[in-house]
């Protein structure tokens, strides 16, 4: 047997205690939704995991009412230090239940256990720790003394980082003194529902966090259109973001949008190439490319194009695609059949429009949704695969000749969420970073996240910032000069 064929090393699912059915979490109680129940499946096996009831407009109203009552009577009156205690408690419970959350996320989402264990769950806990510390220091959030919270926050999160995106939204909202109604993505409600249990465990006052599973078109729409909501935070597609912006236009509801991206990852000829290759992989194949800030457009300086591609494809041959619960799996399952079809559709235009496709030669499991890592070379800036967000493990490679051309090409996108720069020359790194129109710029690394660092986009990638002091300010308003 080849040593490279590592024996199976699956993480045990015995720690999981998934209920056969979940309701809605309103006012610290589980209640049945009035919408149609739906089934959540595991994208890697297509096995049915549990059923969830869906919140309709009346349920949304009930949750917003509960959140309003909790806001008025308890949460907004509580001192920051007291709110902080709850957040610290939540953070610690997430750490204590880390393995359970990692397994749950992997089963429900399809991403490898290696990532949920080392990235999603630890970062989610870190987000709560970070904002717990802010709760009694709001005077320093940049809005002057005694800033006030906004009220009830409606939060809609995507399926790519279900627990982490929940943490990004819930932690700052609570720290600032708001209460929350959160809708997890339809295909990945599990960790949000488990988070409801964490809220109970932490003794969080009733109504401070409410969780409503359901479809975007029903639950999501009812939530953003509800008159009792003071703030909307949405992460997801640009098209839905546009709809939301339209629906709140003219009202005084505050809005932050975290939308799509087509991140440029720029490799200069003086980069440390082996590390750049790692960064390219981390940029586009992390989480199967289901990352809004993915480095999906690789811009390589022409004189090192062949060498970079050679190193990249050689390195990709060591990636392991398969059972997401196996600790050695690098590439997990695509989150849903629908997303898989989207990836196929856009990737197929790549070939049709003249780009050259390279696909990793690897075995694809019989069941579940899978897409082998794919690279397109000879991509023209005008090709669909260089313009549209694919949200999958598909990399488009373009070339440039001068730093100025790299900047022009990188900025030539309706999006502006992320970018990467690879060079050993610090002056070039800073000059280029200055000229890129992207909310997040990584230098000699990619897809690194930290709660202290603000995150957000330019242009069609949305507006508002999450993370850091800026992310806190998104849930606050200037105090009325007391």
């Amino acid at each position: 047997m080849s040593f490279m064929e590592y024996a199976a090393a699956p993480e045990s699912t015995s720690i999981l205690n998934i209920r056969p059915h979940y309701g809605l979490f309103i006012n610290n109680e589980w209640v049945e939704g009035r919408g149609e129940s739906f089934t959540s499946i595991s994208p890697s096996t297509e096995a049915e995991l549990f059923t969830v009831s869906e919140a309709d407009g009346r349920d949304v109203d009930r949750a917003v009412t509960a959140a309003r009552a909790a806001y008025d009577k308890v949460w907004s009156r509580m001192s920051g230090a007291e709110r902080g205690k709850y957040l610290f408690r939540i953070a610690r419970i997430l750490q204590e239940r880390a393995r359970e959350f990692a397994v749950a996320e992997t089963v429900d989402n399809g991403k490898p256990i290696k990532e949920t264990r080392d990235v999603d769950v630890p970062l989610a806990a870190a987000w709560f720790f970070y904002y717990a510390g802010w709760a009694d220091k709001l005077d320093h959030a940049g809005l002057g003394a005694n800033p006030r919270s906004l009220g009830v926050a409606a939060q809609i999160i995507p399926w790519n980082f279900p627990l982490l995106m929940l943490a990004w939204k819930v932690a700052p909202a609570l720290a600032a003194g708001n209460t929350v109604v959160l809708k997890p993505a339809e295909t990945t409600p599990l960790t949000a529902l488990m988070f409801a249990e964490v809220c109970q465990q932490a003794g969080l006052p009733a109504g401070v966090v409410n969780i409503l599973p359901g479809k975007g078109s029903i639950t999501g729409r009812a939530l953003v259109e509800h008159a009792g909501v003071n703030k909307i935070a949405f992460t997801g597609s640009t098209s839905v973001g546009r709809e939301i912006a339209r629906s709140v236009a003219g009202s005084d509801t505050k809005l932050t949008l975290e939308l799509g991206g087509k991140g440029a990852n720029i490799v200069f000829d003086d980069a440390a190439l082996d590390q750049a290759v790692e960064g390219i992989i981390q940029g586009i194949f992390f989480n199967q490319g289901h990352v809004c800030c993915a480095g999906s457009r690789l811009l390589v300086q022409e004189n090192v194009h062949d060498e970079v591609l050679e190193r990249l494809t050689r390195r990709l041959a060591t990636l392991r695609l398969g059972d997401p619960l196996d600790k050695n799996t690098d590439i997990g399952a695509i989150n849903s059949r629908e997303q898989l079809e989207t990836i196929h559709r856009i990737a197929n235009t790549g070939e049709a429009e003249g780009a050259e496709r390279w696909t990793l030669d690897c075995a694809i499991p019989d069941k579940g949704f899978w897409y082998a890592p794919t690279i397109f070379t000879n991509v023209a800036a005008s090709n669909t695969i260089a313009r549209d967000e694919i949200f999958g493990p598909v990399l488009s490679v373009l070339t440039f000749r001068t730093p100025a051309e790299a900047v022009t090409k990188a900025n030539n996108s309706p999006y502006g969420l992320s970018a990467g720069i690879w060079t050993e020359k610090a002056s070039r790194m800073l000059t280029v970073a200055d000229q890129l129109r992207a909310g997040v710029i990584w230098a000699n690394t990619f897809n690194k996240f930290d709660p202290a660092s603000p995150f957000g986009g330019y242009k069609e990638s949305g507006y508002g910032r999450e993370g850091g002091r800026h992310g806190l300010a998104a849930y606050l308003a200037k105090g009325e000069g007391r």
Partner: protein
Amino acid sequence: MTFIATERANRLGLSSLDSVVAFVKALPGVDAVGLEARAANLATRSIKNSSKMAALDTIIRLIDLTTLEGADTAGKVRSLVAKAATPDASHPDTPRVAAVCVYPDMVEHAVAALGSRQGDGVTGISVASVATAFPSGRSTLDIKIADTRYAVEKGANEIDMVIDRGAALSGDWETVYSEIRAIREACDRGDGTHAHLKVILETGELATYDAIKRASWLAILAGADFIKTSTGKVQPAATLPTTVLMLEVVRDWFLLTGEKIGVKPAGGIRQSKDAIRYLVAVVETVGEDWLHPHLFRFGASSLLNDVLLQRQKMLTGHYSGPDYVTVD
């Protein structure tokens, strides 16, 4: 016959000492954060069951069982050789190690103790000798050459030399290169064969990954059969990121020339689980071909006993204890 260093320089189109040094100085840098992240990522591979058993046996086959103490005696060396040949008498199917590694004056005792069991690491147990004023290397070239010749004459199959770190740190790569070249010549036995040369970079003293990368290329260009991390006398000794970097250099050399150079991490690798991480780094950086005694070695003294304990555990299902492996 062209000398190996000249041959290798010619493959890259480098015709003079100056051009070799210029080439090495112009090598692209290494991003430390990225390299260490890559090594940390490799270390998360989970090697279980049949893979773990295969890994343990492979580690034993790749060990240079080492004693490099001022207190070494002929008796100590004999006992080391016995352990090398039969690591675990209670499990006779246990493979033997690749080599024993000793000081030059101990070579004759190792050769005598091995007798017909001596070989090249595959055909039999190889005798490796440190040389060139090991571990500091602070002596004249003449003495280093004499040190090397002595060990080769006494029957050493392999020479583990140290580079002049002082010269490397002061930017005098010419001296580093010329010394390696001279020692490689001293390894020649005069019958067309040579004692295989491992070049110890002492990465803990070179300190930066950029310098380690330069020294690795320079050693290969000067004729090294193996590049080796450390003497074991300086901290840090072998680290996973450093070894990954050296494996990357060896891989690039192979892709450029088709020639396979060996890598030997040495010092500080004491536990099976650490050694397994190195195997993972080898297969995922240069490929499985390199898990061969001619291309990869562990320089270690206490690692073997930990591997034996783990091996016993895999076979019997329970941990025994330190008294179930021998103290040699």
